[in-house]
């Protein structure tokens, strides 16, 4: 384990703690109009007629007819309509909006709008969508992997044992504490949009389509952002669209701050999944062949569903060497609020299913799950499921030893089932990885990140990059990388929230790429700047792909990611055998994130990821009823609180990555993936059951327990 390294306190801590930081709702804009949305009450319906009440002067309504450009939000495609034209496709879809100075009056007027809907059949589950034909498929992929130099698939049929099982994971809400918010105004013929967001250049691109204005007339500025977790990757483009169209029509600044219930109803969720594994073992318990079918619920509009599905697929083999594997994957269209980006991006669903499946294979052979999993660990030089080469050391064995020793795993695994306490105890394990950065050649071919460094008088250096601070520490860590490279104090490095008028497009703040990709570009820029003798100087760097990387996006073969971060979680739980409530008591987590730039920052981010992952596994229920997610407020959607969390021990192994700044790889998403399968494994151990879905609701556990 490496020693603790901290560059010092976060640069933004004091401002936030004291309440001085201005989030979007805090910025004084005296004449800004407020907005209230009319949301669809039906999952699928044709709008037959819509009658507005008389609107007093100063209040306007905005709908599809007011969109000056194309009525579509650009994500990967342009198939997310800003407003419906004839049909509504999910409960919570904005039909129109009212804007005016007094939000209370807007709410009153909303209640007077009369809409006549003709209800249409709605599809609100993966199984219904699966049975509804090609019209309900957003994306469909196949992967067929055969490892070189490994025996697989060639075996006598009588030596086979086939295990098949299906897993389900639920939707999840990001629940960033700051609800989505944006401000739009037209200033001197240009559109200026400020907001809580992860991707200023995504928002600018979406606004060019919606307004029909060219990018030079649109300026996007990130405001202090109160959490994102992926939820402010895609949806801010939608919300900025509403604000921009309204500001253009009204000729006044427009500020939208979603109320929490609106945020829950309107914004994207983690993709629910249904994943089936069918695995063939030989008599000795070696995995010969595995098939996986991955179905995800994309909701009503495609958004990022295709790329989320790809990452799920590339995670389907877990961290194991499987000689032969086939994956069939589909992202399906339903009449639920669209699913979107969320920390892990499809990978947590696949890892939950694969880790549980591996545990079940072990239990069916009366083997210890960890011992069984260790038989198949990927090693340096092995191929990934896409045929990519693991060029860097894989330290899983060492990480497992560390976690097992710290948690006393093996002893507890034997001891807990013998105990007869009031609460049942169990211990579980998960092994996982996360591919860092965009999939395949996305960084080179799509993102093409650029950064600039500018040195001004007095040896002050300014970072010009589009990466945002949303809580994870970007402002601190990117400054640290530059300062350390230039051998100057961090206080000499300036870095403001990105403004598309002033910074180059260094890509979105997503995909665990900020430190590894943008940070590496900044380090390169800083090295060049260091060599320049002039007091005032500027350098620009553009992304170049590691030369040994090869990827074919058509066949999904080659190096799906330039590097992987790795993790081991061991979780100890207590389960109440009467109420079936699960209490996570202790989490031991060991990560390989290359080399942490600031270990305390990463540790804090990992602890948050673990707790968000425990929520995903245990209490965060979004259940479908009446064609919508029933949990619509913080009263019934339960995220972990201070009394719910276990002891958490986080440690790191050092495994420097050649192309990362100071050896760093991605770390933001990785810690989310481990807790769900580890806690489910622990619950299986405690109750002697097999778990095939999350969240682990008490009713479900009770029904499973003999």
């Amino acid at each position: 384990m490496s020693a603790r390294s901290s560059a010092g306190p976060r640069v933004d801590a004091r401002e936030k703690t004291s309440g001085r930081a201005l989030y979007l709702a805090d910025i004084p804009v005296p004449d800004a109009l407020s907005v209230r949305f009319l949301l669809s009450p039906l999952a699928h319906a044709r709008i037959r007629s819509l009658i507005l009440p008389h609107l007093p002067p100063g209040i306007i309504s905005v709908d599809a007819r007011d969109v000056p450009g194309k009525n579509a939000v650009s994500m990967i495609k342009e198939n997310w309509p800003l407003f419906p034209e004839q049909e509504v496709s999910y409960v919570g879809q904005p039909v129109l909006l009212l804007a005016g100075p007094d939000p209370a009056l807007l709410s009153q007027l909303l209640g007077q709008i009369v809409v006549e809907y003709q209800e249409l059949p709605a599809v609100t589950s993966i199984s219904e969508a699966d049975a509804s034909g090609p019209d309900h498929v957003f994306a469909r992929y196949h992967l067929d992997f055969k490892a070189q130099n490994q025996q697989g698939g060639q075996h006598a049929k009588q030596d086979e044992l086939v295990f098949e099982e299906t897993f389900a994971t639920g939707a999840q809400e990001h629940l960033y504490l700051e609800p989505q918010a944006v401000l739009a105004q037209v200033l001197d013929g240009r559109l200026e949009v400020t907001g809580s967001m992860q991707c200023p250049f995504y928002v600018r691109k979406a606004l060019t389509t919606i307004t029909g204005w060219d990018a030079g007339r649109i300026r996007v500025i990130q405001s202090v952002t109160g959490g994102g977790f992926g939820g402010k990757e895609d949806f801010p483009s939608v919300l900025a669209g509403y604000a921009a169209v309204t500001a253009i029509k009204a000729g006044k600044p427009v500020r939208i701050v979603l109320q929490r219930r609106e945020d829950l109803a309107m914004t994207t969720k983690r993709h629910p999944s249904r994943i089936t594994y069918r695995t063939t073992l030989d008599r000795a318990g070696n995995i010969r062949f595995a098939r996986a079918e991955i179905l995800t619920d994309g909701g009503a509009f495609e958004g990022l569903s295709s790329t989320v599905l790809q990452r799920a697929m590339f995670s389907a083999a877990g961290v194991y060497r499987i000689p032969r594997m086939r994956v069939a994957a589909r992202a399906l269209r339903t009449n639920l609020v669209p699913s979107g980006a969320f920390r892990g991006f499809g990978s947590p669903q696949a890892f939950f299913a694969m880790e549980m499946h591996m545990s079940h294979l072990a239990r069916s052979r009366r083997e210890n799950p960890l011992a069984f999993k260790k038989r198949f660990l990927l090693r340096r030089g092995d191929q990934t499921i896409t045929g990519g080469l693991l060029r860097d050391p894989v330290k899983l064995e060492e990480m497992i030893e560390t976690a097992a020793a710290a948690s006393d795993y093996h002893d507890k695994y034997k001891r807990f089932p013998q105990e007869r306490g009031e609460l049942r105890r169990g211990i579980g394990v998960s092994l996982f990885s996360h591919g860092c950065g965009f999939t395949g050649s996305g960084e080179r071919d799509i993102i093409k990140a650029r950064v600039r460094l500018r040195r001004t008088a007095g040896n002050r250096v300014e970072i010009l990059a589009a990466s945002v601070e949303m809580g994870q520490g970007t402002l601190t860590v990117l400054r640290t990388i530059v300062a350390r490279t230039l051998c100057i104090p961090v206080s000499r490095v300036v870095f403001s929230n990105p403004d598309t008028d002033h910074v180059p497009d260094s890509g979105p703040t997503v995909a665990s790429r900020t430190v590894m990709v943008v940070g590496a570009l900044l380090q390169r820029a800083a090295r060049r700047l260091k060599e320049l003798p002039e007091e005032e100087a500027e350098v620009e760097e553009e992304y170049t792909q590691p030369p040994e990387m090869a990827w074919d996006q058509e066949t999904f073969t080659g190096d799906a990611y330039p590097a992987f971060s790795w993790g081991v979680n061991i979780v100890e739980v207590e389960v109440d055998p009467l109420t079936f409530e699960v209490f996570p008591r202790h989490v031991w987590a060991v990560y390989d994130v290359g080399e942490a730039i600031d270990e305390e920052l990463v540790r804090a981010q990992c602890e948050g990821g673990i707790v968000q992952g425990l929520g995903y596994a245990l209490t965060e229920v979004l259940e479908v009823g009446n064609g919508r997610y029933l949990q619509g407020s913080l009263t019934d959607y339960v995220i972990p609180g201070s009394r719910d969390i276990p002891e958490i021990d986080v440690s790191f192994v050092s495994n420097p990555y050649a192309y990362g700044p100071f050896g760093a790889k991605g770390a933001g998403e990785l810690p989310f993936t481990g807790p769900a399968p580890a806690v489910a494994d622990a619950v299986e151990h405690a109750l002697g059951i097999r778990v095939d879905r999350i969240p682990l609701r008490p009713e479900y556990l009770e029904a499973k327990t003999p």
Partner: protein
Amino acid sequence: MKVTFQVNGTTVSVETEPLTRLLDILRAQPGLTGTKEGCGEGECGACAVLLNGEVVNSCLLPAGSLEGASVTTIEGLRDTARYSTLEDSFGRHGGVQCGFCTPGFMIASAALLRENPSPADAAIRVALSGNLCRCTGYTGIIEAVKSAGRIPEKKQ
């Protein structure tokens, strides 16, 4: 109706509807936007303030109940010695990430330390259970409060 009460030691008189939320009254005052709205229904604690010394969610407090009350927001708390101790401690222990919940945690933590200057883990967890954080997983926050409790109060 007219309501007169104290905010951070200053007398404030506002003309308002009886059901207007304290949160909205505060945020409408210049420079008092440190009190945040996270849910608007008393679940998240981002809008926590001290009302006559007790932690309350200002989103649930109607103007009609404020006559003569004394309210302390983060802007008032931040001038105290206890606040400085907490601020340093939150910074050192990774208790601040996106920061949206942090002013509310400051209010709840300061109220705890006033009652119980060196609280144990369990007491901290209970005292902070009305505040939600989505970034830190609470571990850093609990450490921060514990550590602040061990530091003797600076003189005002």
